[in-house]
């Protein structure tokens, strides 16, 4: 019997009892649907987080003051955390493994223009920050070394802040108030989006030197820099330097300890952590898939056994008409595989449909959330579904192929 005839026969067998076929497929549909959905959501989340990390640039290293253990994030703008001194920043500049060192002082007070005002965060930082954070200018210019040197009262605005204060008019050359001082707007940043669930388009940047003078602070809230080589070596150097300067006993294991009064992280580290998370997520999903396909497969076997019994006379007839055992075996096997594969396709469609729904909702909260699918997961789950049909279809199919034609024909 030819393959084409076999598949046609098997498909007719499936479609002859549609509602039962659908119910049989349900386990496979749910299994494949769940896998497709969860891997897609995982992929979307991954792209959201990766997108945020890439805002930092791959070689960027961030340093915060902090008393917390390495697992907690640093508390910024906390006046208690004054451990990172400006002298520390100067000392960092002597390290060979880092460059582009850019300290930040976050300013207090509202930003105003005329009657408009906002609580936008104001950061005093050096021009290196534009490289470290990978931002581009939309209008006007970045502040430069000259602005730093002279401690000029100039400001660069995030795109949302510019819109909040100035609506549709150009902010360039306008004077805004920050705390007790007036600053001239010299540039507007291109949109960046959210970074770690914080809107990076709502900010004001002023020269670090100016912020230092106005705030009269001797400590900074954050330092960004770039590693010149391997970021792990750079982190080692930073830790060594700061522990020595802050008289902290270095841990024997080499990992950060509770003794540290600073936190240092690289974008590469963040990506590594994300990779670990995504591997364990994949394992988890694979387990769910395996269990649901096993359950679905047993359901398929059950129904195929019922079908063999129900269609005993049909099998007898086919044999009387000249079907060989192999023809019957393949017919029922292909039927089982067709059931699971169709179930897989329906599950795929359902998973993608629900995913599209989730994307529609999530977009309102996470603007970087985009529709994403994991092609490997889709192909793998479809193959696994078909494989389930093969594995669980073989026993009923063998049973069918071994029926005695006379007894089968007499079967009532």
């Amino acid at each position, binding site marked *: 019997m030819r393959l084409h005839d076999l598949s046609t026969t098997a498909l007719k067998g499936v479609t002859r009892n549609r509602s039962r076929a659908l119910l049989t497929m349900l386990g496979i549909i749910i299994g494949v649907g769940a896998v497709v959905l969860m891997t897609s959501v995982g992929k979307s989340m991954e792209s959201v987080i990766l997108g945020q990390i890439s805002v930092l640039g791959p070689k960027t290293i961030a340093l915060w003051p902090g008393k917390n253990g390495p697992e907690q994030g640093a508390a910024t703008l906390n006046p208690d955390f004054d451990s990172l001194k400006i002298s520390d920043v100067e000392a960092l500049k002597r390290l060979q493994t880092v460059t582009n060192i850019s300290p930040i002082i976050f300013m207090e007070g509202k930003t105003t223009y005329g009657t408009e005002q906002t609580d936008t965060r104001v950061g005093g930082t050096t021009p290196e920050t534009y490289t470290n954070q990978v931002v581009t200018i939309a209008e006007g210019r970045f502040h430069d070394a000259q602005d730093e040197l002279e401690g000029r009262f100039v400001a660069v605005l995030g795109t949302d802040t510019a819109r909040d204060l100035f609506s549709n008019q150009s902010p360039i050359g306008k004077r805004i108030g920050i705390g007790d001082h007036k600053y001239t707007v010299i540039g507007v940043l291109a949109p960046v989006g959210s970074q770690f669930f914080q809107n990076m388009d709502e900010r004001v940047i002023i020269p670090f030197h100016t912020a230092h003078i106005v705030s009269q602070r001797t400590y900074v809230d954050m330092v960004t820099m770039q590693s010149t080589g391997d970021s792990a070596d750079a982190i080692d150097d930073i830790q060594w330097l700061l522990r020595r300067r802050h008289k902290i006993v270095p841990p024997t294991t080499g990992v950060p300890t509770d003794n540290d009064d600073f936190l240092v992280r690289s974008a590469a580290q963040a990506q590594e952590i994300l990779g670990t998370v995504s591997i364990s997520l994949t394992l988890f999903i694979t387990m769910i898939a395996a269990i649901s396909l096993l359950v679905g497969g047993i359901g398929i076997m059950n129904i195929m056994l019922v079908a063999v019994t129900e269609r005993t006379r049909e099998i007898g007839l086919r044999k009387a008409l000249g079907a*060989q055992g192999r023809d019957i075996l393949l017919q029922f096997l292909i039927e089982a595989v067709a059931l699971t594969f169709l179930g897989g396709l329906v599950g795929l469609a359902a998973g993608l449909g629900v995913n599209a729904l989730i994307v529609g909702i999530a977009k309102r909260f996470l603007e970087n959330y985009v529709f994403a699918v994991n092609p490997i997961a889709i192909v793998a789950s479809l193959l696994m579904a078909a494989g389930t049909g093969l594995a669980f279809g073989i026993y009923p199919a063998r049973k069918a192929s071994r029926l005695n034609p006379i007894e089968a024909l007499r079967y009532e």
Partner: protein
Amino acid sequence: MASSESTPLIELVGLNKSYVNDEVETPVLYNINLSISNGEFVAIMGPSGSGKSTLMHILGFLDVPTSGHYHFKGASTEEKTEDELARIRSTSVSFVFQSFNLLPRTSVFDNVMLPLLYNSTTRVSERRDKAMKAIESVGLKDRATYLSNQLSGGQQQRVAIARALVTTPEIIFADEPTGNLDSASGTHVMEILQNLHRAGHTIILVTHEQATAEHAERIIRLHDGHVVSDDRTFTRRIAKRGNQIK
């Protein structure tokens, strides 16, 4: 239906059949010696339990004898594997059953196409032509797209006959073909079988009804597994054909 006149189509020599069930051997057929030639219309008659169905199954390659010889077209059929028997069934014989045995919820056309699936030498377009011709020959051309369960019993049996014809087999076995039909439909079915016989087909009819058997030109009676008579009273065309008699 050109075939050698000297070699019978079917030749049974000292054939025995017994079934073993729970180590108890039940003999069904004893020392059957029989010869059937090409183009004959033979009825195998007998009460239930006489072994007529078993004989038909053996003749139709659905079952194998316990001992004795079965020569088909002069060739021995012992020692054939199941696959080889299936191949003979797909090309040389076909069956019409008492209970029609059509595939449910399947069109008349697809039912008639069914045997050709296992006869893979034929091309698809050729198969369609053959199926349509077979359906036409039993007068169901306008019902080809109907589902089998939408037909009357007589129509279903005619579909079964079309299905038996489609592979142009050497023998058509009809196992109580009128058993589930009213007398009018039964007569119609027997007329079709007689027409097939006149067209040259070899037909072996299994029945327990004298009236049905009388459509055949030769009646072989079985009783308790023995051939008790081989009667050619009804051989209207025997002189013309010159068949061999054992």
